[in-house]
């Protein structure tokens, strides 16, 4: 079975060492984590992680179950097949001269990104979006010379139910 990119969401207790435990499990089962983000959830004391990793469906399911066994995890779901909203934030410091500045600003506007710092020889762009948007913008800015990039890694959330009839389709046979 081919490895594909999976997006997992984990709700975990906000305690020292938890991130270590989660990351260690992925390493131990031979997974490469592409990105991992951690932050507060809607409940005090509970953090939410979004983990993007490559793996086959069965091996990801194995990691999900192992994660679920950690005493500090509340819930882990693989939302790869779900309808979801995904966002990432990036800061991009791109080379600029008085000659190119205008063109860069135009591109940034088209992407509805923001210029957050202006210097003599560079502009710093803040952009939010999904992976495609990030990559397209980065591609375009490449032509001007990129000095630094900082990406947060993806955060993700399944969409709310619009049509109640829709939801049953998604229910997995989760007897076990």
């Amino acid at each position, binding site marked *: 079975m081919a490895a594909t990119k999976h997006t997992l969401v984990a709700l975990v*207790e906000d305690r020292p*060492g938890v991130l*270590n*435990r989660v990351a*260690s*499990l992925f390493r*131990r089962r031979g997974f490469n984590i592409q990105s991992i983000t951690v932050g507060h959830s809607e409940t005090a004391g509970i953090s939410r992680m979004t983990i993007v990793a490559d793996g086959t469906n*069965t091996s990801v*399911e*194995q990691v999900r*179950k*192992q994660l*679920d*066994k*950690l*005493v*500090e*995890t*509340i819930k882990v779901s693989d939302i790869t097949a779900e309808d979801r909203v995904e966002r990432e934030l990036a800061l991009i410091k791109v080379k600029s001269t008085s000659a190119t500045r205008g063109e860069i600003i135009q591109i940034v506007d088209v992407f509805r990104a923001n210029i957050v710092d202006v210097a003599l020889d560079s502009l710093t762009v803040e952009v939010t979006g999904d992976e495609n948007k990030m990559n397209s913008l980065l591609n375009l800015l490449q032509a001007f010379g990129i000095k630094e990039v900082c990406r947060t890694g993806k955060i993700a959330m399944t969409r709310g139910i619009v049509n109640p009839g829709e939801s049953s389709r998604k229910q997995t046979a989760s*007897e*076990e």
Partner: protein
Amino acid sequence: MKMTGGQIICDCLVKEGVDTIYGILGGAILPLYDTLPQFPQLHHILVRHEQCAAHAAEGYARATGKVGVCFATSGPGATNLVTGIANAYLDSTAMVAITGQVARRFIGKDAFQEIDITGITLPITKHNYLVRDGAQLAKVMKEAFYIARTGRPGPVLIDVPKDVFTEQVEYHSPGKVDLPNFKPTMKGHPAQIQKAAKMINEARKPVIIAGRGVIISNASPELKELAEKSQIPVVTTLLGISSFPESHVLSYRWIGMHGMGYANMAVNNADLVIAIGMRFDDRATAEVSGFASHAKIIHIDIDPAEIGKNVPVDVPIVGDVKAVLGPLNKLVEAAQRGEWLKQLDDWRREHPSTDIRETSSILPQYVINQIYHNTNGDATIVTGVGQQQMWAAQHYTYNHPNTFISSGGLGTMGFGLPAAVGVKMGRPEGTVWLIDGDGSFQMTLHELATIQQEKLNIKIAIMNNGFLGMVRQWQELFHGKRYVATPLWGPDFVKLAEAYGIAAVKVRRKDEVIPAIQQAMSYDGPFLIDFGVEPEENVYPMVPPGASLSQFLEMPRKEEALWPQRSTL
């Protein structure tokens, strides 16, 4: 009430029903040891290496069904525990390890004997704690025992800084454990149980594979009921040995790399495999692509992560074995499976798997078989790792639950002697035999001192072949007989035992075997026998690496005649 951290730990241990602790002290844990005399209910056994503290705690836990407890000091004491903790993790043994840590103000400073033991043991514990606040101790202790024993058992480590042992805190005996996210499923899902029963009732050639989960769950009676009611043949994994009486007509003993040929064939020809409390370890399944390829699989296990991990299953049932088999047995109908059982009996006749050749030299198989006869099959057998472990599994017949104690998952040489210490502590009235290899024994032989210090009546049989035998066998079969680093010099084990004050005899002639075993049995105290056995004997059957279960090699027929009857049944 105000108490010190050390007193709180001891009080919690007593409340958890602990009576025996294995360990070695040192600076960081000294204050805890200092409080031990205030708790005479806690018997501390001083071992000679912390690895053995963990193995002994495991032996004790496996013999009694209680949580094993070991202590070690910070740094090297803690790192020495690691192998023993890993062993308990892979064999699902409930254990709580308490380690001393440097005082809080030194943590993170690379202080003397400071090591990040919670970091090191992260992947080999069910959970671990570094307790930075004495007020948390009681809660942590309660949780640790609960986690260690609940669901699939396993080790939990608690690292306690030296000054937390001496910290005076208000002590309230903790109430119920509150771990909302740790709730193992005990009862099987009724719909799944129904599906399984239907499958069993419709199967023509079913086989039960019973694992250590049956023993942990005390479910031997339920297993027997299921097998008898539906006339299903039973095989076990290595660690499932003794979960089902091996003399029972429905027993076809055990499967795996060195399992019975006929048992392996049963699995690979079955139309239904009912896997109970086992985890499809590669030593049990051999090449998975060829494992039970004609069978539908029902998998009963308490650990959801084991479902579908190595082998895809048709009907998973997550739950405690006993709690699942109870209702399942009610739905299973009585059946007759004469033809299938006759097929298995034929295979057993064609591939007896445990014949012992008639030789003038001493065969280890013969020695073990004689230990079986001379103990009336009533002993608990503890083993080292290697050929002798496999022969101990093959040539002793296990009819009483939980009487075979061996390192399965980790395959830890040196497990035997310290584990036997724990087993004997747990079964003071029982007969305990250690069957060990000269290599394995030399890894932890210093525990003879512990045995002597505690006056433990353990019988020790060393199968002395002058080789790291199992590896030598692989070199012989798969590496052109190049015996690199497997010839093994050993001390005079009899003199060695005597140096520890332990009675011992050397056996070099076949006619001395039975008298030596009888002498050991009648001797009131520990007794060691050094059996000089055939040096290049191989373990058969053997499924070579990469082959499927039913492609086992059998003992090459040598000139010597076979014994007239099968040795172990």
